[in-house]
């Protein structure tokens, strides 16, 4: 598990990041009337990128392929909807920690049961729990059932009575999400470089040997599952804030599968790969949709072409191009 990226790749990624961060500056010039729409689109993609990043910790690092990860994403969104008073704003300082805490707790419970299984059985157990979450919100009257629930007022971010960031502003929210994306990425880099992360990555490669070395893999997997769940909850919280609406579809297996495709397509275990995967998949969707209503057909071909041509995803190709110096191994 390489924790240091080749220098050329780091520079390229930083340039991409800078281009993204400066979008509010060059976007209006390049796209004029469509700018606001694109700004929201990019914000939405970054939220999905956070979700993909959190899933990469499980799939790419620990070898735990979850097909129910969207359940935690949706739960995060529903927590905000439930915590927001009907026509007033919730305070971010209360709502966000409460959301992430609750989602982490849910992930601990699900993870405790799910990590008893492995391989394809783990995929299916997480799918089962995800679908249970979906039907829970779909069938119960708790938050609008299958109609979903609205969040009429976005959370406030205040300190000592003054507003720090106005989340109603699309531009400000863009930067908040960008900040979250960078923060989650850096957090996971630190986690991977830590002793905990090294053990977790070793579990992904050979669990038996890790057990032989005297570690208890179950504890590491459970902590990773809860951490990934909490970060997915953060993404769900942001998505609910952006759209002002949550629906059971956020938790469904279609969403889980979609994010899993982002992770695999982008390059598992590389952290930056899944972010690129989210952008490639969503921008391809957006671009193809503009050209033809049958966009799913070329989309399917694109996915197949990438699998056949790039065994290690887009990130694998980039790492190959940039040479693997600085790999640290």
């Amino acid at each position: 598990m390489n924790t240091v990226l080749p220098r050329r790749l780091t520079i390229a990624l930083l340039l991409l990041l800078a281009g993204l961060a400066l979008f509010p500056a060059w976007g209006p010039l390049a796209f004029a009337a469509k700018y606001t729409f694109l700004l929201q689109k990019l914000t939405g993609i970054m939220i999905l990128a956070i979700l993909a990043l959190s899933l990469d910790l499980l799939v790419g690092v620990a070898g735990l392929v979850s097909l129910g990860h969207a359940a935690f994403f949706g739960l995060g969104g529903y927590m905000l909807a439930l915590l927001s008073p009907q026509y007033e704003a919730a305070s971010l300082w209360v709502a966000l920690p409460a959301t992430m805490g609750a989602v982490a707790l849910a992930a601990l419970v699900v993870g405790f049961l799910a990590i008893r299984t492995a391989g394809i059985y783990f995929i299916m157990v997480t799918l089962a729990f995800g679908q249970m979450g979906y039907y829970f919100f779909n069938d119960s009257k708790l938050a609008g059932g299958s109609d979903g629930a609205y969040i009429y007022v976005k959370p406030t971010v205040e300190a000592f009575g003054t507003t720090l960031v106005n989340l109603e502003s699309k531009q400000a929210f863009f930067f908040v999400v960008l900040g979250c994306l960078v923060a989650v990425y850096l957090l996971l880099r630190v986690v991977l470089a830590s002793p905990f992360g090294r053990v977790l990555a070793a579990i992904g490669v050979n669990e038996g040997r890790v057990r032989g070395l005297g570690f208890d893999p179950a504890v590491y997997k459970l902590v990773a599952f809860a951490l990934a769940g909490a970060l997915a909850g953060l993404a769900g919280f942001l998505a609910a804030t952006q759209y002002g609406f949550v629906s059971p579809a956020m938790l469904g297996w279609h969403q889980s599968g979609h994010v899993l495709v982002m992770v695999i397509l982008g390059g598992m275990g590389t952290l930056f790969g899944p972010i690129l995967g989210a952008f490639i998949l969503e921008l391809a969707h957006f671009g193809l949709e503009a050209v033809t209503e049958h966009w799913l057909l070329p989309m399917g071909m694109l996915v197949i072409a990438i699998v056949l041509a790039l065994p290690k995803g887009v990130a694998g190709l980039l790492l190959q191009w940039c040479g693997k110096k600085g790999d640290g191994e």
Partner: protein
Amino acid sequence: MDFWFFLIQVLNGVQYGLLLFLVASGLTLIFGIMGIINLAHGAFYMLGAYLAYWLARTTGSLSAAVLLSLPIAAAIGYAIEALLVRTLYRRDHLDQVLLTYGLILIFNEATRMTWGADVHGVPVPEALNWSIKLTDTLSYPAYRLMLSGVCAVLAVGMYLVISRTRFGMWVRAGASNRDMVAALGINVKLLFGVVFAIGAALAGLAGAISTPITSVAPGMGDSVLILCFVVVVIGGVGSIKGAFLGAMLIGLADTFGKVFVPDFASFTVYGVMAAVLLWKPRGLFA
């Protein structure tokens, strides 16, 4: 809850279970022998349904349509195995997941482009369009009984082929150790292609014969696929016996869930699966 009502639910549950078994048996064999997680398996079910709908309209006979759609589904299955899946045997499971995910998108969109996005229906054939009267108010449609009969015959046939023939022996051997089978001089490439084609044909058949009791719509394979994965995992991956038991369990759980707890009907299936896996983490027969 009287006896006849209960009997009807049992018949419905068994019929649904048998149908799921037709799809799930191919899925479990493909995973057990080739190690491929084939997400596109539900697409064959959908393809079978659309072919039956289309051929029944052109030929005017559903039985002819079902018989014609079988070789078509098998041929498409064989072609996909030979052209795409074959290149990925040495790769990670998740690459195959991604490939077959791409195939789902293509299949769904191709059917939508060919036959439109509308929901289609296929009428029950005249010869079977009658019901067996159980009481004054309750009756059971003959078509559903025939459906159960066909599925049951196929299940028994599959059991005999797998347990009694040389081909079945290769399949069983492949499921337990495919490298050893190759080393013993079996043409593994051909075996894989044939198993994939048979799986596709069985899924297509299930889709084709179920058209009179369901609606034909794009994406109809997705929900069946997920249920079949549930079945396969409950039974234990690679086990035909397990797939049969799992299919019965899920068919009955789904039917009775809809009768007794309609608000949480979809919950029951996943609840059963979670319970089984927490009790036996590798399925019932693995």
